[in-house]
């Protein structure tokens, strides 16, 4: 019983300053991506991509060029023998650069951030209400 009450108090203390923290949180704001591909309609076809299939392709061409099982070299057997390992000797400059994804702090400029704070605050109040009122317990 006690841990819940303690937790709810900690959560409430954390919750109330969160909006202000993030409103000021320019220092933690991740670099905003202005990736053209991400801004484009997701339903558009890459017309300039030589690998992209034209619209209305026949059934023989249903595989996407980025799919694992398109080309012969994919999967059977899996081409891991050719894979370059992180930090390996062969990680040369001719290999394509891959930016590894990581956890990032949420930016306060994210769409609907205020609403998200509101939803979280509401969840906190519900938990606090259950903890202090002990309905049905």
């Amino acid at each position, binding site marked *: 019983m006690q*841990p*819940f009450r303690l937790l*709810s108090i900690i*959560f409430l203390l*954390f919750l109330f300053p*969160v909006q202000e923290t993030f409103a000021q949180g320019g220092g933690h704001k991740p670099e905003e*991506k202005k990736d053209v*591909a*991400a801004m*484009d309609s*997701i*339903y558009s076809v890459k017309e300039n991509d030589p690998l*992209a299939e034209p619209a209305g392709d026949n*059934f023989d061409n*249903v*595989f*996407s060029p*980025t*799919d*694992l*099982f398109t080309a012969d070299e*994919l*999967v*059977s*057997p*899996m*081409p*891991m*023998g*050719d*894979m*370059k*390992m*992180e*930090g*390996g000797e062969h990680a040369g400059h001719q290999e*394509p650069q*891959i*930016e*590894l*994804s990581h*956890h*990032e*702090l*949420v930016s306060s400029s*994210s*769409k*609907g951030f205020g*609403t*998200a704070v509101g*939803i*979280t605050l509401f*969840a906190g109040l*519900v*938990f606090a209400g*259950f903890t202090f009122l*002990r*309905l*049905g*317990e």
Partner: protein
Amino acid sequence: MANGLSKILQDRLGLHLLEYDISEHANSIKYSLGGMTLTAFTVLVLSGILLAQFFVPDPERANRSVHYLVDQVYLGWYLRGIHFWAAEVLTVTMTLHVIRVFFTASYKNPREINWLIGIGLMLLMVTLLFTGTVMKWDQEAYEALAHFLWVAEQMGIFGLPLTEEFAQGVPLLNRIYMAHISLLPIITLLMVGLHLFYVKYHKLSPLPESPEKSESMPFTRHMAYLQRAGAGVFLLICLLALTIAPPLGEEPVLGMEVTKPPWQFVWVYALENLWVPLLIVAPALTVLFLVSIPFVDQNKERYWKKRPLAMMFLVGFILLFTFLIIWGKVTTMTHSM
């Protein structure tokens, strides 16, 4: 009037059936971990239904559709965060639940079958986690799928249904999506129902240290406690989603291996680094070990102080996995398959 309405609803809905007695120790965090796991799973299902409205299960568009959701859709980043963090919280509560069940010897006669159902549920959760990782279709997803396909290849005819050769002309990502949003959740829900049925049928396992002393209370009181615990779990998920965005990379570069799997799988990565076939052998041995526990451990004793060998196994298992996860996180892949 409120009492009258309450009585009418109770009569119509049969709510009085929930008034059966259970042990009072059910209202504690350690005996509510299963309920907390169920809460996280419910959040996953609901957020998953919303996420599915924005996801395009096509290898060429899947990654872009997730980026679109996160960058362009109102609250899309929050929705994805809730789904991601619900899965993380579920992993933790489910693991703690399994540890509690082992610690209190709740898998022993007559609850062996429910232990097996629980292990099945754990495997389903791992599979859901894996398929969810693949669906975002970034470098991490591609490499996860590449490893999976390698394992499927090694399994020969048994692995065939898991490869693209089984349904030529259908992108594997589509089939993984189907498994993630329908096949696996349906099986999970059925097994959760079975798991709960056997909890009720065999009753909550008694406290090992004082099996006779436990008082009883109506189940509705436990429901109220679970309601509070569930609200806490949801709050935690919301807080995490509000502050930390889950990783999301760009479309994968085929034939490269540069990422590490999520922490839930990284122990296998560490072992694979030692000897590649461990990628298959280690998970199989782990499952075999878990399944065999109630059949090997026939000792009737339930109190942990009187089960030194079992406690040694438990501590050893926890230390081994913790070490492998940390090692997998800090080590660099050195082998070439």
